[in-house]
């Protein structure tokens, strides 16, 4: 289990996270929602160790305080960062090969084949997203953190992504931040965290998609 307990983060004296507790089991998926600025991305980045935080993060019972991100990666935690973060001057192929074999990525998204020698910086938003996603998935993570993976994506690729997530879920724990496609994502998730101004306001066990959406609509405009 990937467990973050009582995480607090402050930037320049501004509290972004105030004592957030969050966990993912292997074989389950959780969805994290909340308005921008509620601290979702910061929570993922704290788990990954790319921001300074107070609190405790542990993976499979092992506490990993003070560990830099590259060692957390080696323990099987992988973050696909937000804002379609790619290495812009490298080709699509190079961007993906940092974590695995390129042809495995083509198996998920066939259109990568004809994009392979293009520089990632000139891709459209949707194309960048599949690069970010396949790079994260190919490293075969035990815990996968996806930050806004569905932004600017075509319907076809959303379906491919969701079925890939379902397949990975059998062995790994997956956490997703999303604004888009909440109705679709809720289908494959087991737990829903609703965050607001740096706190987890509600944890909803998802029994059915309708029930979860209904509860969520009390707090935010979808």
């Amino acid at each position, binding site marked *: 289990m990937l467990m973050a307990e009582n995480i607090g*983060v402050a930037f*320049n004296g*501004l509290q*972004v996270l105030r004592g957030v507790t969050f966990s993912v089991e292997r074989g389950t998926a959780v969805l994290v929602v909340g308005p*921008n*600025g509620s*601290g979702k*991305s910061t929570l993922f*980045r704290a788990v990954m160790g790319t*921001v300074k935080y107070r609190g405790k993060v542990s993976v499979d019972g092992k506490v990993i305080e003070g560990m830099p991100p590259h060692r957390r990666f080696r323990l099987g935690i992988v973050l696909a960062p937000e804002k379609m973060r790619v290495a812009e001057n490298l080709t699509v192929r190079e961007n993906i090969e940092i974590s695995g074999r390129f042809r495995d990525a083509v198996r998920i998204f066939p259109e990568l084949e004809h994009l392979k020698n293009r520089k990632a910086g000139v891709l459209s938003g949707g194309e960048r997203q599949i690069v970010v996603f396949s790079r994260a998935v190919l490293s075969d993570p035990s815990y996968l953190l996806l930050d806004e993976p569905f932004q600017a994506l075509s319907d076809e690729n959303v379906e491919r992504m969701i079925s890939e997530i379902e397949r990975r879920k059998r062995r790994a724990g997956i956490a997703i931040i999303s604004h888009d496609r909440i109705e679709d994502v809720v289908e494959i998730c087991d737990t829903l965290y609703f965050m607001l101004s740096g706190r987890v306001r509600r944890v909803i066990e998802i029994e059915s998609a309708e029930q979860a959406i209904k509860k969520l609509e009390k707090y935010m405009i979808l």
Partner: protein
Amino acid sequence: MKRIVAETAVMLSLAVIMSLSPYYSWLFVLMSIYSLLTLSWLFMRKAGRISMGHSFLFGFPVFLASAGYSFSSEVSIQLFIAGCALSFVIFYIFAEMTGRTAFVFLTLVFSIFVWVSSPKLVFEKGGYLTGGEVGFSFPTISQKELHILTGGTLTLFYLIYRIIGESRAGYFMRAVGDDETASKAVGIDLRKIKALSILLSGMTAWSAGIIYGLEFGHISPEIFSVEISVFPFIASLIGAGNPFASVLSSFGLVYLSKILNSMYPGLMGIVYAAILILSPKIGWWVYVKGKRLDEKAG
């Protein structure tokens, strides 16, 4: 307004007290030169640009003027004006070409380039070679005149700095300093404000340059040295960006360097180096302001 009057009074009384002994009068002029340099730097900082090559703005016109003085006073004055115009244009082009970070690099590298290449300026005059590492001579005036001129110039530019701060131009400069894109979006003509801040900065630095020449009667390529370039940065770091405190810290630094260098030549350089090395710790305010809000909003 009261504060400005009080601060000016403090500076003027310092000027009067230090005129009592020849050594302190000489020292006062030197301190004022460096304070003017700091003020000049602050004009540019106000509009968001950290210059690390201020020695160029300060030294270039007077360096040209002193080279011209080997021929005649007329050539000297013409070259001085040309030097002012050229240094203004170069800094303006730098500011148009680059963002904030690149501006720091460009000015720094440029001033080191000028420092390294200026000793190559050598020409023959009446059978002797002038220029090179040694530099050129410059006219002088009596210490008393110089003292009054310096005190007046410092007070004048300090008042300009403070009064502009309360004016429309000052608010626009602050806005540009905070966020260039947002300033454009509220209708501030970015080019004008950049040009204005560089012009004000230049005028201050050029005056300081003349006084420097008059004080020493001689200009060498050392006027472009890295230490002069980083001086205003260090002084305003210690003054925490407050103009009055920065002027006082310039005074203090010059005084300190006289004491330390008489103990052991080069010792002050070590102090500068230490301040630069620790600057990310002590000078967070210099660096932090340029950052965008979304970086912290996560």
